[in-house]
């Protein structure tokens, strides 16, 4: 808008300077707003002439006009005023705020453009400036805190890691809860490349982060089913519609942008500083824990004796032990875009490059992205052709998360008195894998960091081609083709860990034969849409806009993977570097969808709107009888501000909206028919026995039973909302209440193994989501020339519940671990964490064992749910002339999560939470011991056994006390701080540049968490970014804070 306005000013300025007519009078005056604030830059024109001027900084103007002329005062965002010149030579004008939003046009489903006023469902549009302000490289992160009812969670702050978007809560327990991303009318793939493997998880991001945020003109988020039903099943979780920038006609323009960030570790677990290395209260030099004696500062030897020598250090706590391991990460992003064209054809070409290196020393965690985008359109009479083509290349490397020999797992177990930097030279005789201080399942983290690794590479091409033809001036036909294709390749390797025979670590559990694996995927989506649009006014009051469409969508994927469980040569990683034959596997998948749909909006007197959607889909993934699914939605909006003129003094915008919609949701391919699978047996949960064996192959009856009666899921959603603006938009409120139900949840029904099967894909229950979204904006100070202060509160609650569950199921397992897990229970919030609790007797007393440590009860209990009670985003924006400061707090309250970081740091005695009673012996309060009477029955006697110092570690790792590894995930974060300065246009006029702006940006600068969280940033997860991520983290890499600056210019 501002650009447009500036051009207008310039033009008028030129015009006024050349056309000076001889007029009888010089009229002067001041133009102000209704608050009396002077308005600079108002255009003042003598109606019907080219004679015009602009008001100055004080809102004053001077123009020559004759009596009887009409002066036209116009200003962006204000209602144009006309005043006839009388005899007086002073004419002051007051301009009223224009409710410009009344005419705002929004791109809605399948590329249909509708006036915002006509939308009967909650729709939020975020413009380019807001998207790029924080210089995020990932569009999901760029939306964080900006849209009510949208929960955006980054799996981690690792370079290139994925961010998930969940709109209005969890709607499916079986499938994806991610919204559909539509770029210029074409759906794109948002699949993720991650593994939540407990022994080496990684996250190489989601498809949506291949979009360069600098190319986006606007993003519109459709939340409710009444709006999204037109997109069909894939939009059941909401839709994010992205409109990319197209070329601007006129002179060739070049945009340049550069952003740099520097990143540091932000949160590490709090360590106790009283007790050092050892176990059982004994100072043992090979222990991976801090269960030793109290620090005394005396010099003590540490580590193994090597060549008859041993190292010496004072027995003291090491401050900032973990912080010292990590270094500063970097992030550099550069963009360039060139655009130009004439009135019929425009073109825009953009390139961006992103290079990121995370906080781990070395470049073991890195992410590089290059994007090239071409966008062109041309108009030839009634025919309009447009297209865009994007090429994206990403490369990444990540440091594995989880247990075993992962770097963080090694780090977290180092006793709190050892200086981690001492291990840096991992080939040093004391530090090498043979003599590293401990044999207990971990090794030198620097060894793992440098020798193990991963590599990811993706080549992606996506784009759209569109041709539309105006049949009449009220109807057109459009064909749109979309292509999205990528190939990615993932490699992992672990080094041989083979201590020298006879060395302290020979034969330890850390011994590994090395491994190498590689997999390649090819994923393709083709999308065809044929649309017929009509837009007509039946009479003065009644208008009709209608779109008929046909959609054909094909999604295919193919993958090839191979791995080998040992390596021969150290330092070289390959499938062939092994005495074993690699294991190879391949798979392919294809699904198709036909859809036929109509969207019609009726408008009455431009104040009442009624929109109806109807769609029939045919899915390849469902049984033939259930394949065809008809659904739709209807919503209405009433722009009551136009109906009741009288209220406009207080209220300058008012809209009431309501909608109801249904969406059918299919499932993944190949879920219906029985299958036979390659012979393989589960070996104790740590391995498997796989055929072929001894030259004999095997196939077995698959464990998934057939289901020829599978039906689609059905989302039914009602919403009602109110959009209000008070006092010339000084107060803006956007409020929505919604209530959604998703019936026929397609889930894997776990079958008792005695049926011969372990699961069946079936329709099993109903989920509800009920919540409110409220966005309140306040313009505390508003002065177009001076100081401005805007505040925004973005509040949302959502209650996801499993309303009904098939009676064959008592609960649904949603992931987690075998000990502590994520489950759903009928009538309860989604999802719950369940785990072990102490066994109690009938009086509720805790039963302890002979060491005084609580015994776990045989049944687990629910600890609580994982949902936030509410989320609140709080943004402040201060600006003074060209300087602005913007900061956003993010508050999320409630919910539980599992933390393996808590678990392991408690197990090894590093955590500050292991300091109960200063580790002096204590008796578990209200505890009993069990004993057996002569007749064999069990009786309980009061427990008098205090937990000894030697058994203290067993207390903190007792299964019965697993609740302590589950923490409150509430937090308050200073999410983003942006300080920007745009060089004033006066200054810019003297340069070839059109504008230049500089920003300093801080992210995640502060984090407050409740007392129970002494461990981590509760936003991180190693279980992806969908429902299962709600469980928590399993030794996730630490989160970061970053500070950066950004510079943008255009010429």
């Amino acid at each position, binding site marked *: 808008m501002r650009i447009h306005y500036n051009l207008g000013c310039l033009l008028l300025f030129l015009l006024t300077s050349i056309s000076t007519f001889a007029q009888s009078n010089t009229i002067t005056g001041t133009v102000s707003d209704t608050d009396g604030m002077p308005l600079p830059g108002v255009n003042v024109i003598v109606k019907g002439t080219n004679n015009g001027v602009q008001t100055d900084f004080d809102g004053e103007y001077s123009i020559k006009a004759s009596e009887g002329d009409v002066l036209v005062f116009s200003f962006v965002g204000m209602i144009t005023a006309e005043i006839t010149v009388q005899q007086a030579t002073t004419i002051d004008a007051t301009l009223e705020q224009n409710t410009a939003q009344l005419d705002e046009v929004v791109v809605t489903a399948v590329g249909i453009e509708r006036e915002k006023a006509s939308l009967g469902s909650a729709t939020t549009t975020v413009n380019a400036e807001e998207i790029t302000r924080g210089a995020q490289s990932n569009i999901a992160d760029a939306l964080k805190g900006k849209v009510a009812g949208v929960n955006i969670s980054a799996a981690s702050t690792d370079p290139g890691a994925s961010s998930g978007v969940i709109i209005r809560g969890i709607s499916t327990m079986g499938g994806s809860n991610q919204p559909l991303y539509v770029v210029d009318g074409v759906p794109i793939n948002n699949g993720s490349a991650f593994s939540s493997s407990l022994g080496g998880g990684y996250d190489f991001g989601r498809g949506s982060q291949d979009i360069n945020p600098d190319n986006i003109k606007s993003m519109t988020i459709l939340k409710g089913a009444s709006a999204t039903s037109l997109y069909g099943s894939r939009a059941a979780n909401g839709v994010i519609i992205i409109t990319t920038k197209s070329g601007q006609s006129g002179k060739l323009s070049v945009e340049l942008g550069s952003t740099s960030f520097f990143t540091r570790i932000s949160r590490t677990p709090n360590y106790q500083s009283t007790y050092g290395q050892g176990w059982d209260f004994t100072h043992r030099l090979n222990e991976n824990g801090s269960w030793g004696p109290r620090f005394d500062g005396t010099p003590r030897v540490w580590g193994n004796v090597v060549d008859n020598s041993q190292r010496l250090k004072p027995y003291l706590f090491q401050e900032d032990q973990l912080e010292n391991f990590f270094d500063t990460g970097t992030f550099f992003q550069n963009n360039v875009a060139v655009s130009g064209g004439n009135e019929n054809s425009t073109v825009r070409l953009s390139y961006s490059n992103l290079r990121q290196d995370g906080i781990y020393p070395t470049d073991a965690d890195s992410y590089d992205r290059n994007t090239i985008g071409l966008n062109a359109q041309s108009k030839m009479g009634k025919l309009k052709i447009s297209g865009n083509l994007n090429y994206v290349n990403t490369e990444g490397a990540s440091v594995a998360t989880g247990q075993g020999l992962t770097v963080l797992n090694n780090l977290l177990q180092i006793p709190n008195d050892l200086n981690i930097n001492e291990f840096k030279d991992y080939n040093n005789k004391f530090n090498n894998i043979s003599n590293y201080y401990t044999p207990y399942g971990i090794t030198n983290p620097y060894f793992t960091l440098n020798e193990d690794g991963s590599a990811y590479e993706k080549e992606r091409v996506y784009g759209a081609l569109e041709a539309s033809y105006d049949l009449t001036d009220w109807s057109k036909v459009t064909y749109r083709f979309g292509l999205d294709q990528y190939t990615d390749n993932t490699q992992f390797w672990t080094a041989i860990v083979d201590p020298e025979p006879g060395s302290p670590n020979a034969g330890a*559990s850390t011994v590994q034969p090395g491994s190498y694996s590689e997999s390649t995927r090819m994923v393709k989506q083709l999308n065809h849409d044929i649309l*017929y649009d009509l837009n007509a006014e039946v009479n003065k009051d009644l208008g009709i806009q209608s779109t008929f469409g046909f959609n054909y969508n094909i999604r295919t994927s193919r993958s090839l993977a191979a791995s080998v469980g040992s390596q021969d040569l150290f330092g070289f990683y390959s499938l062939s570097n092994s005495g074993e034959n690699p294991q190879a596997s391949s798979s392919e998948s294809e699904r198709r969808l036909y859809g036929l749909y109509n969207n019609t909006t009726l408008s009455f007197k431009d104040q009442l709107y009624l929109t109806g959607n109807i769609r029939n889909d045919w899915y390849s993934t469902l049984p033939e009888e259930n394949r065809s699914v008809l659904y739709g939605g209807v919503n209405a909006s009433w722009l009551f501000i136009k109906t009741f003129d009288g209220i406009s003094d207080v209220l300058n915008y008012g809209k009431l909206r309501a909608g109801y919609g249904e969406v059918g949701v299919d499932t993944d391919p190949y879920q219906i028919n029985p299958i036979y699978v390659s*012979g393989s*047996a589960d070996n*104790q949960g*740590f*391995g498997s026995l796989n055929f072929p064996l001894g030259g004999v192959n095997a196939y077995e009856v698959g464990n998934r039973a057939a289901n020829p009666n599978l039906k689609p899921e059905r989302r039914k959603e009602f919403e009602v909302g109110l959009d209000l603006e008070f006092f010339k938009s000084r107060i803006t409120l956007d409020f929505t209440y919604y209530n959604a139900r998703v019936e026929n949840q397609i889930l894997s029904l776990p079958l008792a193994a*005695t049926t011969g*099967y372990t699961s069946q894909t079936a329709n099993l229950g109903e989920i509800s989501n009920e919540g409110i979204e409220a966005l309140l904006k306040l313009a505390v100070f508003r002065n177009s020339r001076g100081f401005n202060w805007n505040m925004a509160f973005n509040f949302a609650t959502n209650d996801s519940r499993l309303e009904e569950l098939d009676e064959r199921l008592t609960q649904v397992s949603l992931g987690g671990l075998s000990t502590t897990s994520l489950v759903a229970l009928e009538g309860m919030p989604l999802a719950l964490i369940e785990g072990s609790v102490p066994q109690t007797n009938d009086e509720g007393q805790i039963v302890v064992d002979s060491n005084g440590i609580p015994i776990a009860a045989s049944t687990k209990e629910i600890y609580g749910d994982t949902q936030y009670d509410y989320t609140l985003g709080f943004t402040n924006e201060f600006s003074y002339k060209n300087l602005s400061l913007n900061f956003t707090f993010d508050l999320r309250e409630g919910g539980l999560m599992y933390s393996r970081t808590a678990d392991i740091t408690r197990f090894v005695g590093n955590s500050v939470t292991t300091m109960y009673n200063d580790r002096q012996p204590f008796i578990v309060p209200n505890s009993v011991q069990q004993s057996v009477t002569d007749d064999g029955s069990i009786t309980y006697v009061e427990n008098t056994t205090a937990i000894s110092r030697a058994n203290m570690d067993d207390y903190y790792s007792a299964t019965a006390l697993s609740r302590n590894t589950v923490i409150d995930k509430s937090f308050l974060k200073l999410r983003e701080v942006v300080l920007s300065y745009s060089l004033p246009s006066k200054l810019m006029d003297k340069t070839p540049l059109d504008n230049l702006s500089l920003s300093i940006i801080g992210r995640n600068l502060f984090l407050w968490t409740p007392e129970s969280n002494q461990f981590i940033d509760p936003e991180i997860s190693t279980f992806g970014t969908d429902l299962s991520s709600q469980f928590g983290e399993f030794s996730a890499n630490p989160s970061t804070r970053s500070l950066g600056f950004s510079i943008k210019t255009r010429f």
Partner: protein
Amino acid sequence: MKKLVNLIFISLLALTSCSDDLDINTDPNTPQEINKGLALSAAQGSITTIMGGEFFNLGGMFAQFYTQAPSAGQYDAIDQYNLDTDYANRLWTELYAGALNDLEFVLSESEDQGDTGTYLIATCLKAYTMQYLVDVFGDVPYNEAFQGSSNISPSTDEGEEIYLDLLSKIDKALASYKGNNINSDVGQQDLIFAADMDKWVQFANTLKLKLYSRMSNTDQANSAAVTTLLSEGNFLTENASFTAFTDATSKRNPYYEVQIQALGDVNDVASNSLLEFYTRNNDPRLERVFKPNTEGEYIGIEQGIGILAEPYGGYQAQEFARPDIQPTTPVYLMSLPESSFLQAEAYARYGSSEQAQEKYEEGVIRSFELYGLSTADAMDLISPDGAYAFDATADLEDQLETIINQKWAALANVNNIEAWIETRRTGYPLLVDTQDPAYEEGRRIYSLASVLPEGQIPASIYYPDNEVQRNSNLTQKPNLLQEVWWNQD
């Protein structure tokens, strides 16, 4: 409007012509049909993985061959007699939904094809597997099992009825094989006996003898049936073992693959209960069942003591002897020594002491052979003045103790779960308190880490949580002290 109608019409046309286009929901990644040979191999792989993996480890600790090492803690719960209700999830699933469901397929295919040979093989393997499920868990689903989604909550059957039905099924399969002598055509896909039907008939007979011996202290004891079996004498002439392992990921002996390769050989160390039995008797099997510590010594620890803080806190597994299992060590389903000891017990009960002695001595010799030892050493030990001499004049109970003690010592690293089951059935080797004056090294003891009330040891294990949650007709047992049918008073 006309154009609009046309457009819809064209779209509809496109749709109808494309309805076949949607028939693409058959998984291209898996075969649409398989045959009985492929499923038989898979079933044998599943049984082998449990017998040689999870059951091997559990049995090894419960039979007191191994115990949890200090400085590690993967199997604390086993030595503490404190198994979780989710402990058996994997093995239960692998046996029911893996092995047994595949065997159902093999049974149905071979019945349709009139292949009495393969039918007998599958019947034997099913009976073998069900027998272990009963012996480890007690009453389990049987008659109502394997019906897929048409019965998702199969009721349990009493162990007694399952046993009787298994015997009758084996007899039926034997009869139909003998009546219509079709040799199985699965060939090398039978990874136990390569479809040698004589061997499978022997397997069937030995398995029947085993089932009868379990029943010997119950109302169902059947001396007539046992006597008939003994008089036919057609028992195993070759170990029933799975040998198709190679030293590569997911192709190794299951115990080796997980305990030694994946978990690093840090959990299971030699229990003094077995180790000192061998050393006390100068039995060379010591050096076959266990490998020495890093100093080359055979040192074990008392059952369960590794979990306690004293006296081994900080000791590592390598400082003790550990189970000597190699990547390609076979997994024995039934072994020749086991067969001999079964016969010895049967003769002791229902035949002459001399016959019992003969089979007993044969058992010891076959055990030495199985471990690759010289039989001369065995001969010395079983000679009248040897440590393992059989007293044919002793009463039945003493003879049984001699036989079962030797059977226990012969099952180490061979069939650990069988050893544990037999200790429960017979009470041998005797279970004594370490504080008891009668205690001598090499007896079984109550694990020193036990959380159970004094004087008690597990008599079965919990049904797995997964089954209890999904099967509404199965009720969890209150504790680990519930005895299986053949052990009840």
